């Protein structure tokens, strides 16, 4: 069990120094340096060619689409765009890296010196913090190793490893922040808000689906502590395997608590890579970085420099979507919801989802109700971000429509959602397969009501006397008899009518 001190105590004694590195997999049709498709989830080693397998003799050619996406990301992050920059080789041996070097950008990133504002809810109300961006650069992803036989799925102790090169060469943009300077107690929330804001931006740009759970957006958190008031930087750790927005916050919080315990007991923090464990919110020691690896970077001689013209940059600037923060203000106004309600949507990562659901025909209140209620619960239970649930905004809008026209009630709608999430198909397919239509045939309902009234003569008597508050017992019995597949409001109307309640 790792020692740690409570967060408040840690923050009282130390200031966290934090930087975030985010890798975004671009959803270009082809890889960074070859024509192979990039689709996620294909059979292992089916999306490969001599280039991305690094076969002897094969050469890379830059994917222009990826360069344009990188420039758009840079522009959206308020960065300067390099008029001339090169790729470099980062040399190290690893089996999932086919050439035993990664083609990346090193000291000449395509975009640099930008910023992104993020909103955080504090005790003093919503606050905006500016996260400075150091650089955004292009690189290629590695293949994916699966270590078989070890206890932890890590290479140490494994019997053998399997490598899938489908991912090798998928274009990545690495976005690196400068040191994020915020009050220490806000560091975990700011980290999360930054990841969330960045994800929204990436999605709005249409350059990636930015699914953290599938690894198409990966956040590494660099963190060190310095004693309150000190200017001497501490030793930092880099936490990887942070697979959701919630995990970003938890990982930063845990590292603050852990490092504070190490330093507080007179120890020293080891410079290392740490792995975040979703299950218990802790981090564990990974590769030690004490002996800094020498990657022997040098300019990639197989590629010519990337030199985007001013015209291209201006044209791409014209394609930028509305900034997420600005859009949120517009949507908040449009939907007529409070700051707090908007912040709830933001925290849940639901703004785009709700917007899309509304665009697909749902009203805003119902759209918000489902995404923040039933679906947020499902996301929490499975530990994925809302956007990664296997249900689309169009599905939710369809469920809302089915509820609005009386085909479903809320209880049935929840069952439809459950079915869609379980992979049973579209809402209509689930309705059909599970037989979930509301019983709207009045004669069927009336028969059930008559049975219920007959079974509860005293209730029937009170109803006839005008005591409408007892109607619930009859409605409940009818709903039970129809296994919930009736529209409760309609049942209630019919019960009152049938019992001859005065005034119905």
């Amino acid at each position: 069990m790792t020692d740690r001190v409570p967060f408040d105590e840690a923050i009282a004694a130390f200031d966290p120094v934090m930087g975030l590195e985010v890798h975004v997999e671009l959803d270009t049709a082809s890889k960074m340096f070859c024509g192979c498709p990039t689709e996620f989830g294909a059979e292992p080693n089916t999306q490969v060619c001599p280039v991305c397998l690094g076969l002897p003799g094969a050469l890379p050619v830059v994917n222009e689409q990826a360069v344009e996406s990188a420039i758009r990301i840079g522009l959206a992050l308020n960065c300067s765009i390099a008029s001339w920059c090169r790729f470099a080789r980062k040399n190290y041996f690893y089996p999932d890296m086919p050439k035993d070097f990664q083609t990346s950008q090193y000291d000449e990133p395509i975009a640099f010196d930008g910023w992104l504002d993020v909103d955080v809810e504090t005790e003093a109300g919503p606050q905006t913090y500016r996260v400075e961006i150091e650089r955004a650069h292009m690189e290629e992803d590695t293949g994916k190793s699966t270590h078989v036989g070890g206890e932890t799925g890590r290479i140490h102790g494994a019997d053998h490893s399997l490598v899938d090169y489908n991912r090798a060469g998928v274009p990545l943009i690495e976005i690196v922040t400068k040191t994020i300077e915020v009050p220490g107690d806000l560091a975990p929330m700011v980290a999360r808000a930054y990841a969330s804001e960045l994800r929204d931006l990436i999605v709005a740009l249409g350059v990636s689906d930015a699914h953290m759970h599938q690894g198409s957006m990966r956040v590494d958190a660099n963190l060190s502590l310095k004693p309150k008031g000190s200017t001497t930087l501490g030793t930092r750790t880099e936490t990887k395997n942070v697979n959701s927005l919630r995990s970003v916050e938890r990982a930063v919080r845990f590292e603050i608590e852990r490092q504070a315990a190490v330093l507080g007991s007179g120890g020293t923090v080891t410079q290392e890579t740490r792995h975040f464990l979703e299950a218990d919110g802790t981090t564990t020691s990974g590769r030690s970085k004490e002996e800094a690896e020498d990657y022997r970077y040098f300019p990639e001689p197989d590629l010519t420099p990337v030199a985007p013209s001013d015209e291209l940059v201006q044209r791409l600037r014209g394609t930028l979507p509305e900034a997420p923060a600005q859009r949120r203000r517009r949507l908040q106004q449009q939907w007529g919801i409070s700051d707090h309600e908007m912040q709830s949507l933001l925290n849940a990562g639901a703004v785009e989802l709700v917007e899309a659901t509304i665009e697909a025909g749902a009203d805003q209140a119902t759209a918000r109700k489902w995404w923040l209620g039933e679906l947020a619960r499902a996301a929490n239970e499975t530990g994925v971000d809302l956007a990664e649930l296997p249900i689309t905004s169009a599905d939710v809008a369809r469920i809302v429509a089915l509820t609005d026209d009386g085909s479903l009630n809320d209880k049935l709608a929840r069952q439809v959602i459950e079915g869609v999430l379980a992979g049973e198909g579209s809402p209509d397919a689930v309705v059909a397969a599970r037989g979930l239509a509301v019983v709207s045939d009045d004669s069927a309902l009336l028969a059930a009501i008559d049975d219920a009234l007959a079974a509860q003569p005293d209730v029937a008597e009170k109803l006839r006397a005008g005591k409408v508050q007892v109607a619930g017992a009859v409605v409940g019995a009818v709903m039970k008899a129809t296994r919930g597949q009736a529209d409760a409001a309609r049942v209630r109307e019919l019960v009152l009518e049938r019992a001859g309640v005065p005034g119905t």
Partner: protein
Amino acid sequence: MSAAELTRSTAAELAGRIAAGDVSAVEVAAAHLDQIAATDDSLHAFLTVDADGALEAAGAVDARRAAGEPLGPLAGVPLALKDVFVTRGLPTTCGSRILQNWIPPYDATVTARLRQAGVVILGKTNMDEFAMGSSTENSAYGPTHNPWALDRVPGGSSGGSSAAVAAYQAPLAIGTDTGGSIRQPAAVTGIVGVKPTYGGVSRYGLVAFSSSLDQGGPFARTVLDAALLHATIGGHDPMDATSIDAPLPAVVSAARGELGGVEGLRVGVVRQLQGEGYQPGVQARFDEMVTLLTELGAQIVEVDCPHFGYGLAAYYLIAPSEASSNLARFDGMRYGLRTGDDGSSSVEQVMGRTREAGFGDEVKRRIMLGTYALSAGYYDAYYGQAQKVRTLIRRDFEAAYETADVLISPTTPTVAFRIGERSDDPVAMYQADLATLPSSLYGGPAMSLPAGLGDDDLPVGLQIMAPVQADERVYRVGAALEAALHERWGGRLLDRAPALAGVGRGAR
């Protein structure tokens, strides 16, 4: 037509006879395969002979001709391909144990263009391991011998290709030149070799030694044949980002003399590439070439290239640096040799054992040199400094081409040395490329043309260099000199080579 006549024909003649129906491509291929069978035991020019593939390709050309389809200028002509270009279905070893038995699943662009043109690939030629060397002694599969004197090297790294052409095993061959690996072997075997402008011939499928220097190019027995082959393999390739996206210079027209001779051409003699360090016989032939050029109407100017002296040092930092990275992929994980995978070893151990067993000494030496030169703390002093020298050498060339249209020098300081003579002295070996390294660092085209016999009655080459993308100039000068020399000699220099056991050698 006799087998000897076929093997002694030029590529242009063979293509013409095949197109005219005087001889079938299959007969031509068979004559060359016979010559290989008769001579390669003593030469060892080939690592793989693909008789079946060659006869099949030749048969396809004959079928196309019979069907009345138009044939390209080299259709049916046999060729020897350096074993550094990948060939689908045919082993590609790069002269290294680490790629023993590796059969590539794809064709290099050069390979594909040769096949497309109906050129008949006879097999893959020996080379210094991963093109690192100047003698072909660094091949893991044993050295190649010079047809002029079997105890001498055929140059390197493309020594298998040069020996094959010089021994009439093939009228054409493909080599690669990183610091002189086409020009130097051509010079010491008495044939024509051209390093095109960097980017003029696609490197896709050329197993990389030094990416910023490697360039494929032709070997032939005549300037025109070299040009025809150059035109067949050259030109833009979208699969190679460093390939020049511009029309190929008019090398064939130039070789045919259609762009004129050397009259009025300003020919620069590089002061730094002659004199001390050059054998007397080499210097004498060079001086004769200067005189001949004057007689042919060229204007000789002396040019000064003060930074050429640093070329060797810069080259031996840049090329090994790139090589250390290019050769990292040979780790036993995906293809080629894997050694020491005993079920209990780590991936690092298996990689280490594979590279230990799979690479030869020279390759290891250069990987270590390059790794060191790129290391943190040394990068600026070595790799960075070498790049600055490269810039200075480029400027020397640019300045020289202000006053001269082409530059000339001896191709090599000496004639072919003896096998084993320099194998324990890497620096002496590196000196063989002294005159060829500068234009490699610059990136311009350069030809080695047979210039006569030097010390020990062995061939000497003249190097003709031109500005980037002015490849036609080296062919123009080469063709003019070749015509004059053939007239003076009463034939080709190669006619004076001693007879080898085999069917291809005519009466002497």
